[in-house]
């Protein structure tokens, strides 16, 4: 019974709400990448961007009654995991050399 009302409430949420939510999440991610200086926080912000996309794809998939969007989410999750694994390895490599995770330390290559 509780589940039924839950499902009804979820169906009652218009697609625009999902769109707005993921747009806001995505913007937070973009701003985080641009303004934060700690590499780990930047990684988290990139994850936030990708998860905003996941939310949007899942919402559109449910809205259209089409499973393609939700399958794409699995692709994104798997690839993002692989990507972050490489990213963290690069971070560890840098930390070993500089003892630091601040991105401003890494500006030896001039523009």
């Amino acid at each position, binding site marked *: 019974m509780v589940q039924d009302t839950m499902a009804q409430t979820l169906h009652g949420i218009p*697609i625009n709400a999902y*769109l707005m939510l*993921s747009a806001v999440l*995505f913007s937070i*991610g*973009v701003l985080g*990448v641009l303004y934060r200086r700690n*590499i780990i926080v*930047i990684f988290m912000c*990139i994850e936030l*961007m*990708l998860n*905003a*996309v996941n939310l*949007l*794809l899942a919402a*559109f*998939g449910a*809205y*259209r009654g*089409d499973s*393609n*969007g939700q399958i*794409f989410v699995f*692709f*994104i999750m798997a*690839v993002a995991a*692989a*990507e972050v694994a*490489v*990213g963290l*390895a*690069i*971070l560890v*490599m*840098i930390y070993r*050399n*500089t003892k630091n995770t601040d*991105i401003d330390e*890494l*500006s*030896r*290559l001039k*523009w």
Partner: protein
Amino acid sequence: MKSLLLLSGLGISAMLAELFNLKKLLFPIVCLGLLATIGVSFYDWNTDIHLFNNMLRLDNYALLFTASMSFITLLWFIGANDYIELETSISDKYALVLFALVGAFIMVSYNNLSMLFIGIEILSISMYVLAGSKKNDLFGNEAALKYFLMGAFATGFLLFGVALIYGVTGSFDIQVIGEYCRMNAGNLPMLFNVAIILMMVGMAFKVSAAPFHFWAPDVYTGSPSMVTAFMATVVKTAAIVAFARLFYGAFSFAPSTWQNAISVMAVLTMFIGNVTAVFQQNVKRLLAYSSVAHAGYLLIALVALSHFSGGAIFYYTLSYGVASLLAFHILFTVSGNKNEGADINAFNGLAKRNPLMAFGITVAMLSLAGIPPLAGFFGKYYIFNAAIEAGRYKLVLLAVVASLISVYYYFKVIIAVYFKQSNESAIELTGMHKMLYLVCVILLFILAVIPEMIVGLMK
């Protein structure tokens, strides 16, 4: 399908070679495998196979680019021996480059946005690792991190665009999206236009088009020189072809605003790339900016999308790839495997120290500058021709001005090679390298003799 299996199998067997202690055999096996891939591409010619439920489409366009990228990778392997064997983990480098090539293959043959995403990621993840493959070099570390952050950031934009397009059209298939675009050409919803912009930003990052090019010079300078050579040739080709496939297949009926946006990007890219390159003293950085500028010329072909520009893009990427690879190989030998590349002064008196290398770098620079009897000239000619047929006269005029600027810095290197003196000792080359330089130089001349035939392959 066969080429995809072949390349993936090669990559996996390269990783297994470490286990079975077959490292000595790896080089001939990989060379044969790449030759086989080229052969298989021509075997599949004119078949237009659709794979995996229409997710990949091996049309002639895809096959031709697969063959050309495999060929460039083959040339890369022949020259990159020193880089590959200098430190440990030889087989990893082989495997990563081959997997990057698999990603490039998917990027030139995708027919579904999910495959575009997978292809870009397979290519990029391998390249992030290769960019940082000199673990103790701070420049390499910084390059790897910048490449990773910018790559992941750009992917985020691309994916948000993909999600919006899925929301509007209900499909990831390029043809379905193109059909939707054609049916609703007059009144596309706002979300669709936002999606086009986001995907354009994402792809512009990947091809290093201004104003999203700022990562490229740093990454190209910091990465090991041979990895830079691969990035500037194969990766750039794959990215520009993916860009073209996306806009030719899916958005060709979208409003012309995006074409104008891309032409503005093309002009900015050419001028920023060429003008900044003029002030560079480091040849590696100079080549990095020149590669940014060449992305600008390629974007012109994208603006002038027609049946004609496919051949122009193919010819241009092939001639640019060979010339650029030759320049990077010679730079690598001159700088002695130093990550930060070499100052222009390091090329002083190269004509006396090693005439073959001097001749090679001269031909490469002349071809990159687009001086007539060489392949680079015809590459530019076909791209400008495609733009003129599309009525983009101003764009062509600006492109000609930009390439005139580029002549200055290409000649700076040639002048150092022939007219400056140096006390450095002569450079000895292995037989393999001599052969490689000769093959590249001869190719640049041969390509210039048969341009019509190569462009005609696309029709």
